[in-house]
Protein backbone atom coordinates (compact mmCIF):
# COMPACT_ATOMS: atom_id res chain seq x y z
CA UNK A 1 0.00 0.00 0.00
CA UNK A 2 1.27 3.46 -0.92
CA UNK A 3 0.21 6.51 1.05
CA UNK A 4 0.72 10.18 0.31
CA UNK A 5 -0.48 13.47 1.75
CA UNK A 6 -1.35 16.20 -0.73
CA UNK A 7 -3.15 19.53 -0.76
CA UNK A 8 -5.92 20.51 -3.17
CA UNK A 9 -4.51 23.69 -4.69
CA UNK A 10 -6.75 24.71 -7.60
CA UNK A 11 -9.00 27.69 -6.98
CA UNK A 12 -12.31 25.86 -7.24
CA UNK A 13 -11.24 22.85 -5.17
CA UNK A 14 -12.58 19.39 -5.98
CA UNK A 15 -15.55 20.67 -7.96
CA UNK A 16 -17.58 18.46 -10.28
CA UNK A 17 -15.30 18.49 -13.34
CA UNK A 18 -12.09 18.18 -11.34
CA UNK A 19 -13.63 15.30 -9.38
CA UNK A 20 -14.60 13.62 -12.64
CA UNK A 21 -10.98 13.86 -13.87
CA UNK A 22 -9.75 12.34 -10.61
CA UNK A 23 -12.28 9.51 -10.77
CA UNK A 24 -11.48 8.75 -14.39
CA UNK A 25 -7.76 8.64 -13.62
CA UNK A 26 -8.26 6.32 -10.62
CA UNK A 27 -10.60 4.07 -12.59
CA UNK A 28 -7.91 3.32 -15.17
CA UNK A 29 -6.05 1.24 -12.58
CA UNK A 30 -6.78 -2.04 -10.84
CA UNK A 31 -5.54 -0.75 -7.50
CA UNK A 32 -8.02 0.41 -4.90
CA UNK A 33 -7.69 4.16 -4.37
CA UNK A 34 -8.99 5.82 -1.22
CA UNK A 35 -8.99 9.59 -0.82
CA UNK A 36 -9.62 11.06 2.62
CA UNK A 37 -10.03 14.43 4.27
CA UNK A 38 -10.05 14.93 8.04
CA UNK A 39 -13.79 14.36 8.03
CA UNK A 40 -14.30 11.37 5.79
CA UNK A 41 -12.85 9.05 3.21
CA UNK A 42 -14.15 8.04 -0.20
CA UNK A 43 -13.42 5.59 -2.96
CA UNK A 44 -11.58 7.66 -5.57
CA UNK A 45 -13.29 5.65 -8.31
CA UNK A 46 -16.69 6.93 -7.20
CA UNK A 47 -17.72 10.37 -8.42
CA UNK A 48 -20.38 10.80 -5.73
CA UNK A 49 -17.91 9.70 -3.09
CA UNK A 50 -15.30 12.20 -4.21
CA UNK A 51 -17.90 14.98 -4.48
CA UNK A 52 -19.21 14.24 -0.98
CA UNK A 53 -15.76 15.03 0.40
CA UNK A 54 -16.52 18.67 -0.53
CA UNK A 55 -12.77 19.37 -0.55
CA UNK A 56 -12.25 23.06 -1.24
CA UNK A 57 -8.97 24.84 -2.04
CA UNK A 58 -6.17 24.21 0.49
CA UNK A 59 -7.85 21.11 1.91
CA UNK A 60 -5.25 18.48 2.86
CA UNK A 61 -6.11 15.04 1.50
CA UNK A 62 -4.57 11.62 1.99
CA UNK A 63 -4.27 9.19 -0.90
CA UNK A 64 -4.03 5.49 -0.15
CA UNK A 65 -3.42 3.25 -3.14
CA UNK A 66 -3.39 -0.52 -2.82
CA UNK A 67 -2.96 -3.03 -5.62
CA UNK A 68 -0.57 -4.43 -8.23
CA UNK A 69 -0.33 -1.13 -10.18
CA UNK A 70 -0.31 1.18 -7.17
CA UNK A 71 2.92 2.98 -8.05
CA UNK A 72 1.67 4.03 -11.48
CA UNK A 73 -1.76 4.94 -10.10
CA UNK A 74 -0.26 7.09 -7.36
CA UNK A 75 2.00 8.84 -9.84
CA UNK A 76 -0.87 9.67 -12.18
CA UNK A 77 -3.28 10.91 -9.49
CA UNK A 78 -0.59 12.87 -7.71
CA UNK A 79 0.42 14.70 -10.90
CA UNK A 80 -3.24 15.46 -11.56
CA UNK A 81 -3.69 17.08 -8.13
CA UNK A 82 -0.36 18.92 -8.11
CA UNK A 83 -0.98 20.24 -11.63
CA UNK A 84 -4.30 21.65 -10.30
CA UNK A 85 -6.27 19.49 -12.75
CA UNK A 86 -5.00 21.72 -15.53
CA UNK A 87 -6.85 24.67 -14.02
CA UNK A 88 -5.78 27.87 -12.36
Amino acid at each position, binding site marked *: MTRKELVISNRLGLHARAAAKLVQAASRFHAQVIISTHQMSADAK*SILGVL*TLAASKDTPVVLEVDGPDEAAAMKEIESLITSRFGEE
Partner: protein
Amino acid sequence: MRVLRGQEFHPKLSAQQFMDSFKDLELELLAGSAGLGREIGNPRIQKPGLGLAGDPEYIHPDRIQILGATEINYLSRHGGPDQRQALETVLKRGVCLFLVTKGLTPTPALVEVANATNTPLIRSPKTSSYVISVVTDRLLDMMAPRLTTHGSFLDVYGVGLLLVGESSVGKSESALDLVVRGHRLVSDDIVEIRRRGEILVGRAPEMLQYHMELRGVGIVNIKDLFGVVATQAQKEVDLVVELEAWREGRSYDRLGVDDPQTSILGVACPYLLLPVAPARNITILLEVAVRNLLLKRKGINSARAFARLHMERMGSQKDEP
Protein backbone atom coordinates in the same frame (compact mmCIF):
# COMPACT_ATOMS: atom_id res chain seq x y z
CA MET B 1 -16.43 -13.04 11.95
CA ARG B 2 -15.54 -10.71 9.12
CA VAL B 3 -15.72 -6.99 9.81
CA LEU B 4 -17.34 -4.46 7.48
CA ARG B 5 -14.67 -2.02 6.37
CA GLY B 6 -15.08 1.72 6.57
CA GLN B 7 -14.12 4.78 8.52
CA GLU B 8 -15.15 4.62 12.16
CA PHE B 9 -15.91 7.64 14.27
CA HIS B 10 -16.77 7.75 17.96
CA PRO B 11 -18.16 11.20 18.71
CA LYS B 12 -17.59 12.79 22.08
CA LEU B 13 -19.24 15.85 23.48
CA SER B 14 -17.74 18.54 25.69
CA ALA B 15 -19.71 20.14 28.52
CA GLN B 16 -19.77 23.33 26.45
CA GLN B 17 -21.15 21.51 23.40
CA PHE B 18 -23.73 19.91 25.66
CA MET B 19 -24.90 23.34 26.82
CA ASP B 20 -25.07 24.54 23.21
CA SER B 21 -27.04 21.51 22.00
CA PHE B 22 -29.63 21.36 24.77
CA LYS B 23 -30.82 24.98 24.78
CA ASP B 24 -34.43 23.76 25.15
CA LEU B 25 -33.57 22.62 28.71
CA GLU B 26 -32.91 26.29 29.55
CA LEU B 27 -29.50 25.48 31.02
CA GLU B 28 -27.60 27.92 33.18
CA LEU B 29 -24.02 27.56 34.34
CA LEU B 30 -23.68 27.91 38.12
CA ALA B 31 -20.04 27.01 38.69
CA GLY B 32 -16.92 25.40 37.24
CA SER B 33 -16.79 27.34 33.97
CA ALA B 34 -13.08 26.44 33.61
CA GLY B 35 -14.10 22.82 33.13
CA LEU B 36 -16.43 23.32 30.17
CA GLY B 37 -13.93 21.54 27.94
CA ARG B 38 -14.47 18.28 29.82
CA GLU B 39 -15.76 15.45 27.71
CA ILE B 40 -18.92 13.46 28.18
CA GLY B 41 -17.87 9.95 27.26
CA ASN B 42 -21.12 8.03 27.73
CA PRO B 43 -24.67 8.86 26.65
CA ARG B 44 -26.15 7.32 29.79
CA ILE B 45 -26.72 9.56 32.78
CA GLN B 46 -26.21 8.68 36.43
CA LYS B 47 -27.78 9.80 39.68
CA PRO B 48 -24.93 9.90 42.16
CA GLY B 49 -27.10 8.87 45.16
CA LEU B 50 -24.87 6.99 47.59
CA GLY B 51 -21.81 8.59 46.06
CA LEU B 52 -22.73 11.74 47.98
CA ALA B 53 -23.08 9.75 51.20
CA GLY B 54 -19.41 8.79 51.04
CA ASP B 55 -19.40 5.80 48.66
CA PRO B 56 -18.06 7.25 45.39
CA GLU B 57 -16.76 3.99 43.91
CA TYR B 58 -19.62 3.58 41.46
CA ILE B 59 -19.61 7.12 40.17
CA HIS B 60 -18.82 7.08 36.47
CA PRO B 61 -17.04 10.38 35.78
CA ASP B 62 -17.74 10.12 32.03
CA ARG B 63 -21.50 10.27 32.57
CA ILE B 64 -23.60 13.31 33.32
CA GLN B 65 -24.48 13.28 37.01
CA ILE B 66 -28.06 14.35 37.68
CA LEU B 67 -28.75 16.12 40.95
CA GLY B 68 -32.48 16.04 41.59
CA ALA B 69 -34.58 16.81 44.65
CA THR B 70 -33.33 13.67 46.46
CA GLU B 71 -29.67 14.63 46.14
CA ILE B 72 -30.07 18.35 46.77
CA ASN B 73 -32.30 17.74 49.84
CA TYR B 74 -29.82 15.23 51.17
CA LEU B 75 -26.98 17.71 50.78
CA SER B 76 -29.02 20.48 52.44
CA ARG B 77 -29.82 18.29 55.42
CA HIS B 78 -26.29 16.96 55.85
CA GLY B 79 -24.08 20.02 55.96
CA GLY B 80 -20.77 20.39 57.67
CA PRO B 81 -17.22 19.26 56.94
CA ASP B 82 -18.31 15.68 56.19
CA GLN B 83 -20.35 16.81 53.21
CA ARG B 84 -17.49 18.86 51.89
CA GLN B 85 -15.18 15.89 52.10
CA ALA B 86 -17.69 13.57 50.41
CA LEU B 87 -18.19 16.08 47.60
CA GLU B 88 -14.46 16.52 47.15
CA THR B 89 -13.99 12.77 46.87
CA VAL B 90 -16.69 12.56 44.20
CA LEU B 91 -15.68 15.63 42.22
CA LYS B 92 -11.99 14.76 42.27
CA ARG B 93 -12.89 11.75 40.14
CA GLY B 94 -13.13 14.22 37.26
CA VAL B 95 -16.90 14.14 36.71
CA CYS B 96 -17.71 15.63 33.28
CA LEU B 97 -20.65 17.68 34.53
CA PHE B 98 -23.31 17.95 37.21
CA LEU B 99 -26.81 18.83 36.18
CA VAL B 100 -29.16 20.21 38.83
CA THR B 101 -32.82 19.82 37.89
CA LYS B 102 -36.13 21.43 38.88
CA GLY B 103 -34.40 24.80 39.34
CA LEU B 104 -33.16 23.70 42.76
CA THR B 105 -30.54 25.67 44.66
CA PRO B 106 -27.30 23.75 45.25
CA THR B 107 -25.67 24.02 48.65
CA PRO B 108 -22.83 26.56 48.98
CA ALA B 109 -20.39 23.70 49.58
CA LEU B 110 -21.35 22.11 46.24
CA VAL B 111 -20.79 25.40 44.39
CA GLU B 112 -17.45 25.93 46.12
CA VAL B 113 -16.16 22.42 45.45
CA ALA B 114 -17.35 22.59 41.82
CA ASN B 115 -15.41 25.83 41.33
CA ALA B 116 -12.35 24.49 43.13
CA THR B 117 -12.26 21.32 41.02
CA ASN B 118 -13.34 23.01 37.74
CA THR B 119 -16.38 20.76 37.52
CA PRO B 120 -19.18 22.33 35.46
CA LEU B 121 -22.33 22.70 37.55
CA ILE B 122 -25.35 23.35 35.36
CA ARG B 123 -29.00 23.90 36.24
CA SER B 124 -32.26 23.34 34.40
CA PRO B 125 -35.75 24.35 35.56
CA LYS B 126 -37.19 21.09 34.15
CA THR B 127 -37.95 18.04 36.29
CA SER B 128 -35.46 15.19 36.68
CA SER B 129 -37.59 12.65 34.83
CA TYR B 130 -38.01 14.99 31.86
CA VAL B 131 -34.33 15.95 31.77
CA ILE B 132 -33.23 12.32 32.03
CA SER B 133 -35.43 11.13 29.17
CA VAL B 134 -34.54 14.02 26.85
CA VAL B 135 -30.80 13.89 27.59
CA THR B 136 -30.50 10.09 27.30
CA ASP B 137 -32.53 9.89 24.11
CA ARG B 138 -30.70 12.67 22.32
CA LEU B 139 -27.22 11.78 23.57
CA LEU B 140 -27.68 8.19 22.36
CA ASP B 141 -28.12 9.60 18.87
CA MET B 142 -25.49 12.35 19.07
CA MET B 143 -22.84 10.07 20.56
CA ALA B 144 -23.69 6.99 18.51
CA PRO B 145 -20.56 5.40 17.03
CA ARG B 146 -20.54 5.85 13.27
CA LEU B 147 -19.15 3.98 10.31
CA THR B 148 -18.94 5.46 6.85
CA THR B 149 -18.81 2.74 4.27
CA HIS B 150 -18.88 2.34 0.52
CA GLY B 151 -22.08 0.72 -0.71
CA SER B 152 -25.73 1.04 -1.61
CA PHE B 153 -28.48 0.86 0.97
CA LEU B 154 -32.12 0.06 0.30
CA ASP B 155 -35.38 -0.94 1.90
CA VAL B 156 -36.44 -4.19 0.21
CA TYR B 157 -39.74 -5.64 1.46
CA GLY B 158 -39.18 -3.68 4.67
CA VAL B 159 -35.72 -5.18 5.17
CA GLY B 160 -32.69 -2.87 5.26
CA LEU B 161 -30.38 -4.31 2.59
CA LEU B 162 -26.80 -3.06 2.41
CA LEU B 163 -24.95 -3.87 -0.82
CA VAL B 164 -21.17 -3.76 -0.61
CA GLY B 165 -18.37 -4.79 -2.94
CA GLU B 166 -15.59 -3.38 -5.05
CA SER B 167 -16.23 -0.40 -7.25
CA SER B 168 -17.90 -1.13 -10.60
CA VAL B 169 -19.14 -4.55 -9.46
CA GLY B 170 -22.69 -3.28 -10.06
CA LYS B 171 -23.97 -1.98 -6.74
CA SER B 172 -25.62 1.15 -8.15
CA GLU B 173 -27.09 -0.74 -11.13
CA SER B 174 -28.57 -3.37 -8.78
CA ALA B 175 -29.91 -0.59 -6.55
CA LEU B 176 -31.54 1.09 -9.55
CA ASP B 177 -33.06 -2.21 -10.64
CA LEU B 178 -34.50 -2.68 -7.16
CA VAL B 179 -35.96 0.85 -7.18
CA VAL B 180 -37.60 0.17 -10.56
CA ARG B 181 -39.12 -2.95 -9.02
CA GLY B 182 -40.75 -0.85 -6.30
CA HIS B 183 -38.19 -0.92 -3.49
CA ARG B 184 -36.81 2.17 -1.80
CA LEU B 185 -33.41 3.80 -1.96
CA VAL B 186 -31.86 5.10 1.23
CA SER B 187 -28.37 5.87 -0.08
CA ASP B 188 -26.14 5.03 -2.97
CA ASP B 189 -22.37 5.01 -2.91
CA ILE B 190 -21.75 6.15 0.65
CA VAL B 191 -23.71 4.94 3.65
CA GLU B 192 -23.42 6.37 7.14
CA ILE B 193 -24.24 3.78 9.76
CA ARG B 194 -24.93 4.75 13.36
CA ARG B 195 -25.07 2.31 16.21
CA ARG B 196 -27.84 2.97 18.70
CA GLY B 197 -27.54 0.34 21.39
CA GLU B 198 -27.62 -2.92 19.40
CA ILE B 199 -29.42 -1.33 16.47
CA LEU B 200 -27.66 -0.17 13.31
CA VAL B 201 -29.29 2.66 11.40
CA GLY B 202 -28.09 3.62 7.93
CA ARG B 203 -28.64 6.84 6.05
CA ALA B 204 -27.10 8.94 3.31
CA PRO B 205 -24.61 11.74 3.88
CA GLU B 206 -26.71 14.90 3.72
CA MET B 207 -25.21 16.17 0.48
CA LEU B 208 -25.62 12.90 -1.33
CA GLN B 209 -29.22 12.14 -0.44
CA TYR B 210 -31.14 10.21 -3.12
CA HIS B 211 -28.50 10.79 -5.80
CA MET B 212 -26.99 7.99 -7.79
CA GLU B 213 -24.27 7.76 -10.39
CA LEU B 214 -24.82 5.53 -13.37
CA ARG B 215 -21.85 5.04 -15.62
CA GLY B 216 -22.56 6.53 -19.00
CA VAL B 217 -25.63 8.43 -17.78
CA GLY B 218 -24.14 10.50 -14.99
CA ILE B 219 -25.59 11.69 -11.70
CA VAL B 220 -29.36 11.26 -11.35
CA ASN B 221 -31.82 12.11 -8.59
CA ILE B 222 -33.94 9.08 -7.68
CA LYS B 223 -36.53 11.13 -5.79
CA ASP B 224 -37.14 13.38 -8.79
CA LEU B 225 -37.14 10.49 -11.24
CA PHE B 226 -39.27 7.97 -9.33
CA GLY B 227 -41.09 10.03 -6.74
CA VAL B 228 -41.18 10.16 -2.99
CA VAL B 229 -42.26 6.52 -2.57
CA ALA B 230 -38.97 5.36 -4.13
CA THR B 231 -36.84 6.80 -1.32
CA GLN B 232 -36.48 6.60 2.41
CA ALA B 233 -34.51 8.80 4.80
CA GLN B 234 -33.11 6.07 7.04
CA LYS B 235 -33.48 2.40 7.78
CA GLU B 236 -32.19 -0.29 10.13
CA VAL B 237 -29.47 -2.46 8.60
CA ASP B 238 -30.78 -6.05 8.52
CA LEU B 239 -28.74 -7.80 5.84
CA VAL B 240 -25.37 -7.19 4.21
CA VAL B 241 -24.78 -8.66 0.75
CA GLU B 242 -21.33 -8.46 -0.77
CA LEU B 243 -21.31 -8.56 -4.55
CA GLU B 244 -18.20 -10.05 -6.07
CA ALA B 245 -17.21 -10.74 -9.67
CA TRP B 246 -17.33 -14.57 -9.91
CA ARG B 247 -13.86 -15.84 -9.05
CA GLU B 248 -12.75 -19.12 -10.56
CA GLY B 249 -11.75 -21.55 -7.86
CA ARG B 250 -13.45 -19.71 -5.04
CA SER B 251 -16.05 -21.70 -3.16
CA TYR B 252 -19.40 -20.04 -2.58
CA ASP B 253 -22.02 -21.24 -0.12
CA ARG B 254 -24.00 -24.07 -1.71
CA LEU B 255 -26.16 -25.12 1.23
CA GLY B 256 -27.14 -22.03 3.22
CA VAL B 257 -27.51 -24.00 6.47
CA ASP B 258 -25.05 -21.76 8.29
CA ASP B 259 -25.84 -18.20 9.21
CA PRO B 260 -22.77 -16.19 8.21
CA GLN B 261 -22.47 -12.77 9.79
CA THR B 262 -20.46 -9.61 9.49
CA SER B 263 -19.60 -7.24 12.30
CA ILE B 264 -20.63 -3.60 11.94
CA LEU B 265 -19.46 -1.36 14.79
CA GLY B 266 -19.38 -4.49 16.95
CA VAL B 267 -22.91 -5.59 16.11
CA ALA B 268 -23.38 -8.90 14.25
CA CYS B 269 -25.45 -8.66 11.08
CA PRO B 270 -26.51 -11.42 8.63
CA TYR B 271 -24.15 -11.52 5.66
CA LEU B 272 -24.08 -13.18 2.22
CA LEU B 273 -21.38 -13.28 -0.42
CA LEU B 274 -23.09 -13.20 -3.80
CA PRO B 275 -21.07 -13.89 -6.95
CA VAL B 276 -21.93 -11.80 -9.97
CA ALA B 277 -21.73 -13.47 -13.39
CA PRO B 278 -23.46 -13.33 -16.76
CA ALA B 279 -27.02 -14.74 -16.70
CA ARG B 280 -27.26 -14.27 -12.95
CA ASN B 281 -30.05 -11.81 -12.36
CA ILE B 282 -28.70 -10.06 -9.30
CA THR B 283 -31.89 -8.15 -8.52
CA ILE B 284 -33.99 -11.31 -8.37
CA LEU B 285 -31.31 -13.05 -6.31
CA LEU B 286 -31.28 -10.14 -3.87
CA GLU B 287 -35.06 -10.22 -3.56
CA VAL B 288 -34.94 -13.95 -2.89
CA ALA B 289 -32.19 -13.47 -0.30
CA VAL B 290 -34.41 -10.93 1.48
CA ARG B 291 -37.48 -13.19 1.27
CA ASN B 292 -35.38 -16.01 2.68
CA LEU B 293 -34.24 -13.81 5.57
CA LEU B 294 -37.86 -12.95 6.32
CA LEU B 295 -38.69 -16.67 6.35
CA LYS B 296 -35.79 -17.39 8.69
CA ARG B 297 -37.08 -14.73 11.05
CA LYS B 298 -40.40 -16.58 11.14
CA GLY B 299 -38.45 -19.69 12.13
CA ILE B 300 -38.53 -21.30 8.71
CA ASN B 301 -35.08 -22.27 7.43
CA SER B 302 -35.52 -23.94 4.04
CA ALA B 303 -31.93 -25.19 3.82
CA ARG B 304 -32.04 -26.78 7.27
CA ALA B 305 -35.49 -28.24 6.68
CA PHE B 306 -34.21 -29.83 3.47
CA ALA B 307 -31.11 -31.19 5.24
CA ARG B 308 -33.33 -32.67 7.95
CA LEU B 309 -35.60 -34.31 5.41
CA HIS B 310 -32.55 -35.66 3.65
CA MET B 311 -31.26 -37.24 6.86
CA GLU B 312 -34.65 -38.83 7.53
CA ARG B 313 -34.77 -40.30 4.03
CA MET B 314 -31.25 -41.70 4.39
CA GLY B 315 -32.21 -43.21 7.73
CA SER B 316 -35.36 -44.88 6.36
CA GLN B 317 -33.43 -46.24 3.36
CA LYS B 318 -31.18 -48.15 5.72
CA ASP B 319 -34.19 -49.87 7.29
CA GLU B 320 -35.51 -51.04 3.96
CA PRO B 321 -34.40 -54.49 2.81
